[in-house]
């Protein structure tokens, strides 16, 4: 919102509501025209994109910090998956990683520090477009280096990091947005200075850039949405083929896997309720298969709630907070912007339009408030 208001001087007059909107029966060409207008001119779900940025930036930062004691074992030159093995595999698979460029320990520590900084800057939304590319490079590099230590959560974070480079995920809830806001309130009317040819051309280039940014963003969000649908759809449909999901005992086996049982007492307690286990099995499959089909109606809210509960359960019972976190953030992409706007207003009732002198405090408050949002927002 802020960004758009800030850009308003460049944009001309408010839209005149077109007649096509008023009449209920719209012809196909009109629909296509309206679709193309939205596609090329209006980046959709900017708040959801921001939530994805904040969520995955934070998640990766926490992950890197959590593995701090094991960083050398996972990504470093001292890993049992030696740099030599990694390079050998890259030759076969076509992967690449900044981490295998050198085997020296200081180089690795530098890369690790760079990854921490990149994740933090991405989370804060500082120079987001450039930093998002850096973030994708970091995530891909770390993923490729330790490819045999990754799981579904890492895989999803990698895909999202790549897709997010396409989106305008820094337009909301970011340092970039704050800068734009300040610049707008500081220097108004700077743009209508001269009507020289160069200015004209620059303006048109800016228009082209805006169109491309919007298209790229919308395509990125579409790909993200499709990706999450494929994830759930295939997870569900592959489960349907398994007998244990059908007879309602699958979760019994899951609860008894030693590596995914951080709280054995809790797992045992859950395992005792076989009816509950069966119900949870069916619900899991049902919700996963249904996911792609409920997204276009109100039914998506209960389904997203069930998924949130499911992922919280997985996070605690199975000790997979990274995986669950990645899934919860992906689900949050499907909540509408009006939800996030309302949330933002509730979380930050004052200070949004604070004068520049107070902005430092506002920013700090904002930074402290922003991280928990992905989790809260999905409720």
């Amino acid at each position, binding site marked *: 919102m802020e960004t758009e208001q800030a850009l308003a001087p460049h944009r001309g007059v408010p839209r005149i509501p077109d007649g096509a909107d008023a009449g209920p029966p719209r012809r196909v060409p009109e629909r296509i025209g309206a679709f193309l207008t939205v596609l090329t001119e209006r980046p959709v779900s900017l708040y959801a994109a921001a939530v994805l940025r904040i969520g995955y930036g934070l998640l990766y930062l926490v992950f890197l910090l959590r593995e701090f004691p094991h960083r050398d074992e996972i990504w470093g030159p001292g890993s049992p998956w030696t740099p030599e093995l990694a390079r050998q595999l890259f030759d076969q698979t076509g992967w690449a990683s900044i981490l295998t460029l050198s085997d020296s320990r200081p180089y690795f520590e530098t890369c690790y520090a760079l990854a921490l900084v990149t994740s933090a800057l991405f989370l804060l939304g500082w120079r987001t477009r450039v930093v998002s590319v850096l973030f994708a490079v970091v995530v891909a590099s770390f993923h490729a280096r330790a490819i045999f*230590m990754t799981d579904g959560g890492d895989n999803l974070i990698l895909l999202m990091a790549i897709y997010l480079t396409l989106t305008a995920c820094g337009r909301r809830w970011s340092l970039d947005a704050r800068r734009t806001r300040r610049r707008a309130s500081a220097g108004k009317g700077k743009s209508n200075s001269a009507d020289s040819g160069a200015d*004209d051309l620059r303006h048109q280039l800016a228009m082209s850039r805006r169109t491309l940014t919007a298209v790229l963003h919308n395509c990125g969000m579409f790909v993200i949405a499709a990706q999450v649908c494929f994830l759930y759809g295939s997870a569900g449909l592959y489960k349907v083929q*398994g007998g244990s999901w059908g007879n309602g005992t699958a979760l019994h086996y899951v609860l008894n896997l030693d590596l995914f049982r951080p709280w054995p007492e809790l797992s045992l307690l859950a395992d005792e309720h076989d009816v509950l286990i069966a119900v949870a099995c069916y619900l899991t499959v049902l919700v996963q298969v249904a996911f792609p089909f409920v997204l276009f109606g109100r039914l998506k809210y209960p389904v997203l709630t069930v998924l949130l509960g499911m992922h919280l359960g997985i996070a605690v019972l199975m000790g997979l907070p990274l995986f669950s976190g990645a899934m919860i953030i992906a689900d949050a992409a499907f909540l509408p912007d009006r939800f996030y706007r309302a949330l933002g207003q509730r979380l930050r009732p004052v200070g949004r339009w604070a004068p520049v002198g107070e902005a430092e405090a506002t920013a700090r408050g904002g930074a402290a408030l922003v991280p928990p949002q992905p989790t809260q927002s999905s409720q």
Partner: protein
Amino acid sequence: MREARMESPGGDVLGGIETADVDEPDQSRDRGDDRGDDRRGGRTTHPRQGLSKPPPVLLKAGTSAAVALCLATALVHVLLVFLHVAPPNPLSRQYSRQVNAWVFPLFEQNWRLFAPDPESVNRQISARTMHTTQDGKVRVSGWFDLSGVDDSAVRHDVFPSHTAQNMLRRAWSSYLETHGGDDRPRSERALMMQKYLTDIAADRITDHGGGTFESVQLRVITVPIAAPAEGPGPGSSAAAPKSVETRYLPWWKVTSHGN
């Protein structure tokens, strides 16, 4: 769509003002019936300085081409990822080369999470070491429980490390994939997995004060998870072993450990 419309009431005429007078085939197709409105919008308002000229045709065409390219890429990407994720079918078989070329390595994915059936076994992987002393005596150590290190690391940890949950587990499953039932490596990948497993075992034993050794041997005990008290067994009963199985792997030379 409706939401976005509410969000930015002023977002659209930018296209209209500049393009109202350009007669490009692309334009008339793209804008469809919105054109009339946009034209009206452009006339009823005062075009600001610098905005009155239409954009260069080249720029316009370039932008349109880029838009089309973005759309096409997104659609093709989604289609190829779908074919990659879906079970093998005639379409994905026919286009497997294209799918693989696009998807690997960056977009590789597998969402068979606990599917079709979750694992119904726990694996206890242990290792022992062999050391030949200078006077030619061979000393073999006792078994060291590698999985036990993981299990105790996972226990009562809110955020277990990947080194505990994934390292040994995935190393062993990849070894199984590349070797199958016997322990003769048939591919370069199989050799790599053998080296990886050796390294993991050697590192862990060294970390726990294993002394000097030249080779390691692994032992994998597969313990089936009991079926629920009164319930049926695991779905694919053929795949699930009914009793404890123990597999001894050959002795593997270790390169630079404990020296």
